[in-house]
Every structure is written in structure tokens, then in C-alpha cells.
């Protein structure tokens, strides 16, 4: 899989994706970028709502912030892993925490992947899909 190509416009057409972030701006940026490749993006502004959304929608993958009120990203990933009906859904951490140890902690807690803010809008989707190719093999065909 080549890391140099761009993702075609309808690459994620029909895909339902959940994005969770307490910052409305961060939510909007991620939403727009994913919609640009055809995904249907459902958003939540805190962990609790996000969890509910994951349960009802069963998205293909989830992108979540970590520091959030009500239910943090840590608690969210805990809850997702404990619920067998959704534990298989890959959850990507997208967070402004970039201290040493944050990444390792995320993986230890159960996040499948880890991206830091600020994201690169031009390459965000590409990077995301490259990470997810282990969990979603169809992506191999898409991202040439």
C-alpha cells in the first residue's frame, strides 16, 4: 500500500462513522474532512452521548478525543471494550495530548490507533485509513 496517493472522493461512501469531541470546531473539521470522501459522519460532544451513538449506529470506526466532560476518552474506550456488541469497532484517538507516554497509555487502554492534534487536513483521511487497514481489509483495495 503506497502512502503517497490521495483518497478518492467516494472512498467511504456509505460508511457510517462516529466522531466524538467536546470542541465543536474540532468536531466540524473532522466531520467535513470525512464527508469529503463520502462518509456519513455522526457526531457527539461528550463521551456518554458518543457511547450511545456507537451502540445504536454501529459505525465502521470511531474517532474520539480524550479530554472530555461527563465521560473521558479513557472511560469511553473502557466501556466500548466491555460491551461485546461494539468491542470490535476500531476506535482511533485524536487528541491534543502529546506528552511522552500519552501514546503508550492510549494503546494500553485499548485505543486501536493514535493521532495527535493539530491534524493535517490534507492528509488526515489518508493517514486514518492507512492505520485502519489492519482492521478493515477492504481499505486495501481503496487506498492504492
Amino acid at each position, binding site marked *: 500500500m503506497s*502512502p503517497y496517493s490521495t483518497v478518492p472522493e467516494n472512498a467511504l461512501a456509505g460508511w457510517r462513522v462516529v466522531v466524538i469531541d467536546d*470542541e465543536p470546531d*474540532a468536531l466540524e473539521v473532522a466531520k467535513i*474532512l470525512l464527508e469529503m470522501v463520502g462518509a456519513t459522519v455522526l457526531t457527539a460532544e461528550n463521551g456518554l452521548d458518543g457511547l450511545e451513538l456507537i451502540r445504536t449506529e454501529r459505525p465502521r470506526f470511531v474517532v474520539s478525543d480524550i479530554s472530555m466532560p461527563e465521560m473521558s476518552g479513557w472511560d469511553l474506550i473502557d466501556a466500548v471494550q466491555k460491551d461485546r456488541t461494539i468491542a470490535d469497532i476500531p476506535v482511533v484517538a485524536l487528541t491534543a495530548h502529546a506528552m511522552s507516554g500519552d501514546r503508550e497509555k492510549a494503546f494500553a487502554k485499548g485505543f486501536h490507533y493514535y493521532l495527535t*492534534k*493539530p*491534524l493535517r487536513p*490534507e492528509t488526515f483521511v489518508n493517514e486514518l485509513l492507512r492505520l485502519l487497514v489492519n482492521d478493515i481489509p477492504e481499505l486495501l483495495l481503496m487506498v492504492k
Partner: protein
Amino acid sequence: MTAIAPAKAPVTRRFVFLSPTITILGIVGILLLVAVIALIGTMLRQIEANRIATGFNFSTANRPFSQLEHEAMQTLVYVTENPEDFDAARFQQDLDVLASRWEVVFWPTVQAVFPQDIKDNIDEMIPMWDSIQDLSAEWMADPQNEEVHAELAQLLSDFSLLVFQTDVRYQTIRGLTLDNFNQSTENLLVALTIVLVLLVGFVIIAAYAMYRFVQAQRSAEAKTRAALAAESAANETSQFKDQFLAVMSHELRTPLNAIIGFLGIMGMSGKLDERNTHMLQRTRANAERLLILINDILDLSKIEAGRMELVPSAVSPRELVGRWQTQMEVLAKQKDLKFTVTIDPHLPDEIMIDENAVTKIGTNLLSNAFKFTDEGEVSLESKYSDRQWYIIVRDTGIGIPAHMHNHIFESFRQVDNSFKRPYGGTGLGLPIVQHLVKAMNGTVRVDSEPGKGSTFTVTLPVEPVEKAAAPTVSVSQLQPA
């Protein structure tokens, strides 16, 4: 670059009780006390014994023999001198007194202290006394009997003499014993005084030693407390620093995410005219610059605080290089520079390395290359041989004069430090690179000449991760036999 080292608390010896001075003082003190008690005990016993030995009590038993002798003589005098007007009553009185004095001799307390020779004398006196009793009774019955009278007088005289001799002997012994007693008492008193003086002296020394000891303890404790306080203050400070860094890192990145995100989206929309596109690009470039500044400041803060830890993990170097390339392609496009990336096929699939650290190295070098190059190209080459990963960044930029080759790795140094600063930046990129490379036991080298571009070569020792060969069978390959 310094890291904060917490102050070490001085070691306090808790077992000062085993120190030699205290032990010696303790032993000496105990010995002195024992000596005092023994002396006093001996003295008391001695006094008691002597008291008994001398009959030294203020009773009539004090001088038994002299009193007996005195009464015997009185009786004798009466018997020998007044035979005509003999008064039986008076004589009987004398006899009674004499008898009572005689009895004293036989009191147990008095008898107890008699040596053998006095006891022998008493044995002699007993028959004499009996005879005196008999003769006295005879004479009282017949005072005119000259024979009885003479015998009685003689007997009384002999008796008195014997008693007198015994008394002399007794007084001598008593005197000797008294002398003995006085001397021994004197000795004991002297000994006791000496020991008491020593005891007092010892108590003073011990008190002083205790005082010094307590002082030393207190000052040691104070020092420990001060050191611990300093240590906890230093810990608090570094904890605060950690927290500050973490919070600042998070807070500064969050708005930049929105800024860069929306700018990027606007750029990708393709709906902007040339002027707006230009302004967008400029805004985006400045936002990126801000991000770099933030990252550099936070990195350097972490390094200065000694908080930069290397966390190796299994990563694919190709993937890393790929990411850097993706990141830098934007810059290349913006400045219209050629950007080539070559990867050695011998590079292992996975290596153990701190991803963040090596990414910083790669991206710092690359962004410098792009920053200082206005035309031509930037190339990133990844070579591998003998467990060494060579990361080589070449550019056709302005180059670095030879005398600056070392200085550029110092914080805040740029080749051109003037206020014009056409190239901007904090000058922190290369120091960070060098620190990280050193921490990873690698090296960084620069080859450059003004006008001829620069080549930065980073060498990192890496451990390839052995992957267990696991054959994967896809479903399509399964066929019925």
C-alpha cells in the same frame, strides 16, 4: 542542558545509642552506682555489727562490770565497817541492788558480745556468787558470828577484784573495738565521699554528653527536615512544571487544530480565486510556523526539565519515512521545490525505536532544509547497513559556513542572527535534533558550504525486530481436496 536533580537527604544515624561514648558512660555510671550501694550497705552492716560488738547502746548494760564492781565494793564496805549497828533492812537492800547488777551480766544482749576470756571469768564468778548468797543469809541470821563475817568479807573482796579485772579487760576490748569502729567508719566515710564525688562528676559529664547528643540529634533532624523539604519543594516544582507543560501543550494545540483544519479545508474546496488562495496560503503558512514554534518550545522545555524519555516501540521505518514525506510534500509544493525520498530496501520491516524522537529528528531536518532552500531540491535518503540507520537530508539551499558548523547545534543560534531574520524560526530545531540523536546513541554530521547547499547525516543504531514467520492463509486459498 541541565536536568533537575533532587537534593539528597543526609543520612542520620538512628543507632547513636550504640556509639562508644554513650556505652562507656553508661557502664561507668552503673559501676559507680553499684559501688555506692555496696559501700552504703557495708557501712550500715558494719555500724550494726560494731554497735552490737561494743554494746554501744544507752542502757544500763553499757558498763555491766564496772557497775557490778561498784556495788560489790559498797556491800563489802558495809560488811567490814559497821558490825555494831547492823541494819538488816539496809543490808538486804544492798544485796538486792547487787543481785540486780549481777543479773545484767547475764542479759543475752550483754552476753552476746563477750569474748571467751570474759566468759571464763564469769564462770569463775558464779560459784563465788552462790557462796556470797549463802554466807550473806548466814550472817544476817547471826551478825555476831565472826567467822562468817570474815569469810563473807573475804569472798566479797575476791569477787570485787575478779569483777574489777574483768571490767578492765572489758573496757580495753570495748576501747579497741571503738577505735576499730571509728577507723573503719572513717575509712568507709572517706570511700563513700570519694565515690559520691565521682558520681556527681559522672552525672555532670553524662548530663553534658546528653545535652550535646540531643543537640546533635536536633541539628541532624533539622538538616534532614530541611533537605526533605528542599527535595519535596523541588519535586513539587518539577511536578508543577510537568503539569504546566502538559496543560500548555494541550491548550496550545487545540485552537491550532481548528485553525489549520479550517484553512486546509478552505484550500481543498477549490472555490477560491487567486488572491484569496494566496492569502489563505499565507495564513496557513503562519499557522504552521506557530505550530512549529509551540512544538519546539515544548520540546526544549521537556529536554531542559529532563523529562524527555525515550520510549522505544516496534515501528516500521518505511512507514515513518512515508509520513514525513506526506507532511513535507505540502512545503515542497508551496516553495515549488523538488522533493525526493529514497528508501534502502535493506531497511528492516520493523525496528525498536522511539517513534516520536526519530520523527522529530526527521521532520526538523527536513523543515530546516525546506526553510533554507529557495530553489532546487530537497532529498531524504534512508540507508541501512550493519544495524545502522542513516537518515540523510540534502538540500540545495544557502549553505552553512564552516565556522558555524558546530554553533548551529547550540540553542538559539542561527547563521544569521540579525534582526532581519529572513528565515525566521526559533533556532531550536537543530539543538533538539542533536540532543535526541545523542540520547539514542547516534551521531549527526553536517557537510555544507555557503551557496552549495547542505547535507545533514544522522546515524542511529537500531535493533531490527525479528518477526516470527507466520504463514497466512486467506480464505480463497482453501480448496477441497
